[in-house]
């Protein structure tokens, strides 16, 4: 029995670490961390990590491949978009469509180079990392004296990618947010129980009733807490909708589709997968095309949050995304990792960022701590894998 509990603890180690770290910062900031506005900040400040890490996860699954160019591409695409909307006066819809198109084109070029020309991913994307930062900065300095193009007048753009749904004043209870939380919690509970019932009916191994109840109670508690806090902070942030939709879509792709399955098997053994009749080059191509599209969406969110495009936008975003994946248990060699794990990893990094900012830790120390957390996560991962192997 004892070993069963240890197993459960091990499986959810990162989740437990996340809770402990959260409690640590709550205590260290004398409860500031627990305030409604900081729940809101956790989501709005880290939305980019969730979305980029989703794309990065798909790349990493194929064999530990990464995209170093996404941060610089956010800067470049943001400056192109800002110039289109704010300087050239083009329509918001047209600009968004064109930005997406540029993202798709970049993804195709990158995917082609990596999948069909066999350029090592980190070199191909290192080129982008350098070039797009330069390009983005050049475009901005051509179009403004300050190196930054403001988008604050474009209300439509703001509404689409930042701000609140059915916004209410801070401090007041936003009923729609609360109801959305209750509905989400109910769906989670129903899904948990119906999955178990279906498994039992067909005679498969299913989790025990106790563990399903515990899982459901914890999930409901977390969702309702978030809903309550967000309701007090003015409503559901629009980015949350983007993040949740993207996470749900990719959860489905990675766990339920044949396409998703191939990402995993390629990472584990590309040659086997190829000889099993899978077009492995196409999968590699899609991984980077997908990454570029998600980077474009990230650009919308980031420029909208800052209400401007500037030359430092997206700095180190690629590293945050990789770190979120690795901390979330995505293998640096490919073949394993889940969206859920990545979400936990991204949240953990977000909590550490926010907690340290609230504590007033200076930026240098923040970097040091993040580096150590990343290293610790990888070492933990390797040790856990070793333990399993010797079992």
């Amino acid at each position, binding site marked *: 029995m004892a070993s069963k509990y240890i197993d459960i603890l091990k499986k959810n180690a990162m989740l437990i670490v996340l809770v402990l770290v959260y409690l640590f910062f709550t205590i260290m900031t004398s409860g500031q961390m627990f305030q409604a506005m900081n729940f809101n900040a956790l989501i709005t400040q880290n939305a980019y990590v969730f979305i980029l890490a989703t794309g990065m996860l798909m790349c990493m699954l194929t064999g530990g491949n990464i995209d170093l160019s996404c941060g610089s591409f956010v800067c470049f695409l943001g400056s192109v978009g800002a110039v289109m909307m704010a300087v050239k006066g083009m329509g918001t819809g047209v600009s968004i469509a064109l930005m997406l198109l540029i993202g798709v084109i970049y993804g195709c070029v990158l995917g082609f180079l990596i999948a069909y020309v066999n350029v090592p991913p980190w070199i191909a994307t290192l080129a982008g990392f350098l070039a797009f930062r330069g390009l983005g900065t050049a475009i901005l300095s051509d179009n403004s004296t300050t190196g930054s193009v403001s988008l604050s007048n474009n209300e439509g753009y703001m509404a689409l990618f930042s701000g609140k749904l059915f916004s209410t004043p801070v401090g007041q209870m936003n009923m729609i947010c609360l109801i959305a939380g209750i509905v989400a919690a109910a769906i989670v509970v129903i899904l948990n129980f119906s999955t178990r019932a279906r498994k039992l009916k*067909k005679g*498969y191994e299913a989790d025990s009733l106790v563990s399903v109840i515990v899982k459901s109670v914890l999930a409901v508690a977390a969702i309702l807490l978030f809903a309550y806090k967000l309701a007090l902070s003015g409503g559901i942030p629009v980015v949350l909708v983007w993040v949740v939709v993207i996470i749900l879509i990719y959860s489905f792709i990675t766990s*339920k*589709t*044949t*396409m998703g*399955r*191939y990402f*995993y*098997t390629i990472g*584990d*053994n590309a*040659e*086997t*997968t*190829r*000889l*099993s*009749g*899978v*077009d492995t080059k196409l999968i590699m191509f899609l991984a980077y095309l997908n990454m570029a599209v998600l980077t474009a969406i990230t650009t919308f969110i980031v420029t909208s949050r800052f209400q401007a495009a500037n030359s430092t936008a997206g700095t180190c975003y690629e590293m945050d995304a990789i770190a979120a994946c690795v901390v979330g248990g995505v293998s640096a060699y490919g*073949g*394993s990792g889940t969206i859920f794990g990545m979400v936990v990893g991204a949240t953990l990094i977000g909590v550490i960022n926010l907690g340290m900012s609230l504590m007033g830790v200076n930026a240098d120390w923040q970097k040091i701590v993040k580096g150590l957390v990343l290293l610790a996560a990888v070492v933990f991962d390797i040790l856990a894998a070793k333990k399993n192997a*010797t*079992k």
Partner: protein
Amino acid sequence: MGNTILEMKNITKTFPGVKALDNVNFKVEEGEIHALVGENGAGKSTLMNVLSGIYPYGTYEGDIVYKGEVCQFHKIKDSEEKGIVIIHQELALVPQMTIGENMFLGNERGTKNAINWNETYSEADKYLKMVGLSESSHVLIKDIGTGKQQLVEIAKALAKNAQLLILDEPTSSLNETDSRALLDLMLEFKKKGMTMIIITHKLNEVVYVADKITVVRDGSTVETLDCAKDDVNEERIIKGMVGREITDRFPKRHDVKIGEVNMEVKDWTVHHPLYTERVVVDHVNFNVKKGEVVGIYGLMGAGRTELAMSMFGKSYGTDITGTMTINGKEVNLKSPREAINEKLAYVTEDRKGNGLVLGKSIKVNTSLANMDGVSERGVIDTDREYNIAVQYKDLLKTKTPTVEQSVGNLSGGNQQKVLLAKWMFTDPDVLILDEPTRGIDVGAKYEIYCIINDLVAAGKSVVMISSELPETIGMSDRIYIMNEGKFIGEMPASEATQENIMAAIIQSTGGGEKA
């Protein structure tokens, strides 16, 4: 002979949950070649790892008495200092380094801080001569063949002043000629007084070189046969290994009707992917009928795997010409997917390298080549996938607690079954099996043969590539002999003997160096 050089007394070694060795006693006399045989997982390698200090003193029970003294080896260096050197199955050579550098890796010549390269290379040349290699020690390892690499390993062991040499499956990746040369070298060393222990699956080799044979089964030594006194033959050894008489190593096929031609290949020519002027497969013609097992026999490097892979959706080679007909329809397969769609399956030779996804479950591996069979518009039906994996597990008698088990944890024989399940699930008409029983033990081989028989009984065609002659003769209806990229002979299995097949190969090699 007569002096006991090594005695391992009452060795017991436990891993968490398993007793790998149980009170093993093992005695080797000076100047003999002692063969250690047993099925996979019987404990041969564990025993040798105890001896060489890979499992240090204290992690096992019992005593190692070497040259009259009780030894306590804490690491490999300790046993090597005493002259016990082990050569592992997987070659431990660095491909990008020269023979000389490899030979003294970890044992460098010169002073403590500087390597004396002149001494290194001149000594290396000396040892190379001893193993009969004419290569210069400046040649890179990657530029010589596996047979020669194996000899370099032996030279490396000699350089360590080996007195007791342990060879773990030394011929597993060698062809017949190279294997024979290696065994002869062992016999030559014996004359000079060297003591050797050989671990091998190839019983004909055991009979050829060994003075004594110790059989290990389920972690204990069952018996030691003395080739000078006992009447030792392969059947006798197998009986000891499996604990029962195997009357027929190759199950009989009953009432299998051989029908019309199912697949035919004409004028098939393939060029090397990098050195495009080199012809790897040269105007090959062959066919396989429904319900028939066709064996393709050839030495390693004859081009068998290259032929199979080039047929399987051009997975190998460039400038492929020739025609291929499946079920009376001429096909031009441009990718593995098209090959699978035309009901051709290629069960690869290298289970770990390109056959299975080791980190993934039996379930995932079973469905990998036919995801359409377990999905609806790209969405996986998890129930169906699970049920199919279970179905094949039961059908092929794969030993595993659950199909969620990761394939890397299975034994070779069970991995091979998963690999077969994967391809059977694509519902092929023609299966090309490349070395289907390599590295798996006698019992599992028999089961694989039974599966092959079931396949042809169901009207499928099987092309079996093998470098084991008894297996080729025992399992095939018809045999094609391949050498240097060409098909040099075809004969019904009833007429085939080991002698006439080897003779055909030697003849066609046309004044080859070793013929």
